[in-house]
Every structure is written in structure tokens, then in C-alpha cells.
């Protein structure tokens, strides 16, 4: 009887503790997914890439940045806007949508954009020690970017255009 009671108490404690963390995590994600949030300054992490809205020729892309202070306390999340206009977690090629920065302060993660055309991504950074009370712009950094992926073979098409031939035909020289 005593053993059963002890077991029930332990299970209850475990459920409570795990609920706390999932509650906290859910709260963070809720904030990160909010449509009302605007980009902040890069006060926790300098985003090296993307430098701003970019146009690229390949679906594969490397997001990277650099944290100046207390790097090892900082966690980075990446989200992408889906076709319904909702933010969802965007997993990198290692299968993670959030990661902790190491002692060097540098992070670089490879992602593969799902679509050609415009891909809206959100990079968020916060200190793990302040996870329970995150406020956008104060201790939660959020930066939105639009990455336009050109159709495959775009540059090959451009390169294959024989400008000289067109010019010659334009001026009537064979």
C-alpha cells in the first residue's frame, strides 16, 4: 500500500514538473508564433546571414549569427510562415528548430526552404534563464526575413542568353 502511494506521488510530481516545462515552452512558442510581433533590434544575437531580405538561387541556405555576451545562455528558434499565414517551427537539416549557442557565440545552421518564391522566416533569440518572463524587444529578440528562392536553373538561363548575338541582330550585323 505504501509502495503504491509512493509511486503515485512520484508520478504526480513528475507530471507536475514536466507540465511546468511544457507550459513554459508552449508559452515561448505562442509568443514566437504571434502574428502581431514585429522585428526587434539584434540586441542578443547579431544575425550574420540573412543580412536582410535576400534573393537566392538555391533552396538550401545557411542561417548564421553571433552572440556577443553570455552566449551559452542563449537559445535560438527558427520559424517559417506556412501557406495559411501561420508561423510554424522550421527544422534545419539536423532536425532541430531550436538550439543553444556554444561558447564561441557563433551558430550556423543549414535549412532547406520548401518553396521557390518568397519564404518568410523568423529568427528568435532569448536567454534560457529568462524563459519564464519573455518580453519582445526587452529580453526576446525577434527578426523576420523574406528569402526569395529563384526558380531552379534561373542563372543558367540568364547565362545562356547570347547578348552578343542579339546586339548583332539589333544593329543588322551578321
Amino acid at each position: 500500500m505504501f509502495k503504491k502511494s509512493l509511486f503515485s506521488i512520484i508520478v504526480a510530481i513528475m507530471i507536475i514538473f514536466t507540465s511546468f516545462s511544457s507550459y513554459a515552452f508552449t508559452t515561448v512558442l505562442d509568443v514566437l508564433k504571434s502574428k502581431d510581433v514585429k522585428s526587434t533590434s539584434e540586441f542578443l544575437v547579431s544575425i550574420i546571414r540573412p543580412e536582410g531580405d535576400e534573393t537566392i538561387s538555391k533552396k538550401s541556405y545557411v542561417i548564421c549569427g553571433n552572440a556577443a555576451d553570455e552566449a551559452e545562455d542563449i537559445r535560438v528558434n527558427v520559424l517559417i510562415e506556412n501557406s495559411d499565414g501561420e508561423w510554424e517551427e522550421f527544422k534545419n537539416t539536423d532536425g532541430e528548430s531550436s538550439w543553444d549557442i556554444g561558447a564561441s557565440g557563433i551558430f550556423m545552421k543549414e535549412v532547406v526552404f520548401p518553396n521557390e518564391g518568397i519564404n518568410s522566416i523568423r529568427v528568435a533569440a532569448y536567454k534560457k534563464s529568462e524563459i519564464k518572463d519573455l518580453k519582445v524587444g526587452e529580453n526576446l529578440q525577434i527578426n523576420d526575413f523574406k528569402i526569395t528562392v529563384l526558380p531552379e536553373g534561373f542563372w543558367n538561363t540568364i547565362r545562356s542568353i547570347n547578348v552578343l548575338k542579339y546586339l548583332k541582330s539589333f544593329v543588322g550585323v551578321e
Partner: protein
Amino acid sequence: MFHVYKERLKLYLLAVLMAASIVQVGILWSYQYHGFPISFLQGFLRIRINMDTSSSKARENYLKPYQIFITDGEGYNFPDYYIVDAKNNNYDKLWKGAQACLEYVLREKKGEQVDTEEWYDLVDRKEDRSEKIFSRMGLAAVFAFRGNIDSNLVTWFLNISNTLAPDIGGIYKFAIAPEFDANYNSALYILEKDFSSGIEKVYRFIIEHGETKLINNLDLRTIYKSVSVEGSKNSFSAAGSLGNLGVPNDQLIVIPQRQFRRFDTLVCQVPKTLQIEGIKTLTERNRLGSKILGPDADTCDSIDIISGIKFQNANNIYHMYDNGLFAYEYKSLMPDNDRGYIDNAFVNALEFMHLRIDILTEPVDVYLSGVEILPGFYRFMFDYKVDGIPVIFNYEEEGKEPVNNAIIIEADEKRVLKASWIFKDFEVATGEKFYNVSFTDNQDRLHSAYSQLADAVIGDLLIAYEVRENSDNQELHPSWIVINQDRDYYMVPLVKK
């Protein structure tokens, strides 16, 4: 009366002269020569006995790039770079061809100094950089030395008497871009770097379409195909492709995390002929001296010191330590502040090396890794590579500058003034292993080990075998090594799979 004073003065003078002569005899006694009285002949005879110090031989032996890397301008994320190592069948042909191109432009082309950004534009090919000076499509091969090699020394190596090139101080790296522009011109770029100030200069030489035979002979496309067979398993990216990561933008890095690549394990030890453990008798010491002292072997006295043996004659002091470190110093009574011409000083350094180079055995490869011009002398640094991977020494003697290079020779145009040489034999141990070469993983570990790195300006980054001073029969595994602008070394071992 006057006569008596005169005689007494003579007596005093005679006494002083006698005392001086005794002192002089004492001085000469302490510097006495113990061999046959023909040492003055050695100065003449030594000059060219079995010693080819010609520029062509020196070029073949020591002017070797620390790294050659090549791209075709394409890649999964960024242009993929591949390292062309010495095992590649085309390596010798490529390096000889590159030297021919370098020689041609220095001899025949005026060239011009261009914005430093153009070098990084060529190497990292960052997609979103606003100013595209040239098409940045296609092939490029980069030839990197470990240090900035003084241009006077380069022209001596290449046997160039007159150069049309601008006033280039030295060559740290050079690159050949066969597909430089739409007019089928090629380009050769030279990067000069002053490591003390960090100042870089870039020079561009255009090789026009009609004169690209030397470039075509390199056949870079074939070489690229041969090194890129394994694709991303062996590829690198230029750090600057991503942006400013705090390392030189032309530094090759592996971006993904947990990327494991194959390295041999080495075993290193002091060459058997130089092992001083157990040497007790004069004969044994002389035998060692005959291996290491060159023509001074017959004239040096030897004494035991802590962890080594000291050899000495009138002008030269040699130390041989049990950790393989060999040190030399010229005892100069009159310091000479005139260092003279660098090529003459370099020949002196080569002669010093040639007397001892045969102690080293395969598979060690010696290359010139740096040149410093200092007041009164030149400092030449040489290092070892084993199977294409550099070896870095981490010898720290209390109260002395750490020794990180295998061979350091300080010389002026008259003689070698000071030298240190770490003699080691290397053997490839059985069983290769895989190690994590990811940039972020290793940088994180390095920063955890050295907090002072947070503010450091990184000058160089490499994967090399690290040899510490206090162990013999040492098993060597590759290490992640960062060298800051002040040439301080920071090292952590790579993590095994």
C-alpha cells in the same frame, strides 16, 4: 735625476705589458683550438661541399605551399572548395605550373594594386555583396603559404632579376582565376599580409586571352574533377561566404555540425641518432656531436647539462636536449647591425640546414613557413608536414618564448646567428580514425578552453598535429589550432568519432 725617472717609467711600462701579455695568454688559452690548426680552411672548403644552395634547388625543397585549394565556383550552398594534397597525382604538376605563372607575371606584368575586397570577392564569392567586380563564375585555385614570404626572397627563388610588378612586400597567398572575365582573360592575384599590423594588400595581374598558355597548362578543370570525386565528404566553404565570422574570410571551414573526416595517427620520437639518454662517455658525446655539429664537431668541447649536452668552441655554442630540441648560438664579440641582403642570409640558413637535414627521415616534409625581417637579422621559419598535414610544436620553456616552429633560423648575410631545430621522426601508426572537423563544434570547444579568445583577432586557423615537449614516443592526433594576430597558439584536440 731625469734619467732615473725615465728608467723607472720604462720599468712600470714593462711590468704592465708583461701583465697584459699574461692576461692575453689566459684569454687565448680559454679559447684554445683543440684540433689540427687548419680550421681556417674550413671556411673556404665548407662553402660548396655537397651543398647545393642554388635557388632552383631551394625552390624545389622548401618553397612549398602550406595549402592548395580549388573551386569551380559551384556548390550546394556556396562554392565548394577542395584541398589538393601532395598525394594527388597532379600536385607536382600543378605547383610547378603555378610557380611558372607567378614567375611570368612578376617578370613580365606591371599589374596593379586593387581593393583588398577583390581578393575576398574572388575566394568567398558571397552572393549578396553589392559590387561584383568580375563575373566570379568558374574556376579558381588558391596557393597559400603559412607566412608572408618576402618578395625579394620569392624573386630569388624564382630566379627573377628584374620585375615589372609594383612594389610588393611579400606573398602570403596567390590565386589563379582562369575565367576572370567575359573576354576570356585570366587573372593572377597576390595577397600580401603584414602579420604584426594585420594590414593586407592585394595585387592583380591580368593575363590576356592570347597569352594564357601557362594557365591552360595547369588544366585546373581536370584537377578539380580529380579532387571533387567524393563530393561533400571532403569539401570546404570559404568562411566569408557566410559573412564575418571573426576568422579570415578566405579561411576554409566545414559548416555542418558533427562532420567526421579521416586522419592518420602518428607516432613521433627523437631520431635514434640524437637520443642522449644513456650517453655518458666522451666518445659517445663526440659521436653525437659528429651527427649534429657539422664542421664544428672537431673543435667543440662538450659538457653535460640538465636534460642535455652543451657543445662549445670559440665562437659557437650548441645545445642538444633530450626532447629533440637542438639550439645554436653564435658568440659575437662585436654585434653587427647590418643584416645585408635577404637572399644571402637565406643561403646561410640553407647551409645550416643542409648539414643536418639528413637526420630527418620519411615521411616528414620540410617547408618554409615564414620570414620575418628584424633589426640586424632575418628570421626564417620552417615546419614539417606529414602526409600533407602540418605539424605544430608546443614547446614552452620557462622564461623563454614558446617554440612553435620546427626550425627557426636567425641569420644575416654573413652567418647564422641563432637557431633552434626540433628533430623528430614520424611514423604513421596503423589504423586511421575519424575526427569531427566542424567549425562551430571546434570553435565552441576552443572558446570553452580559452576564455581570452573572446577578444582575440584570429589570424589563422588550421588542423594540425600538435607535438608537446615533454613526451617522447608520443601518439599524435589532429588538433584544432587557432593563431591570433600576435602569433599566440591556442589548441584543442579534435574529437574522435
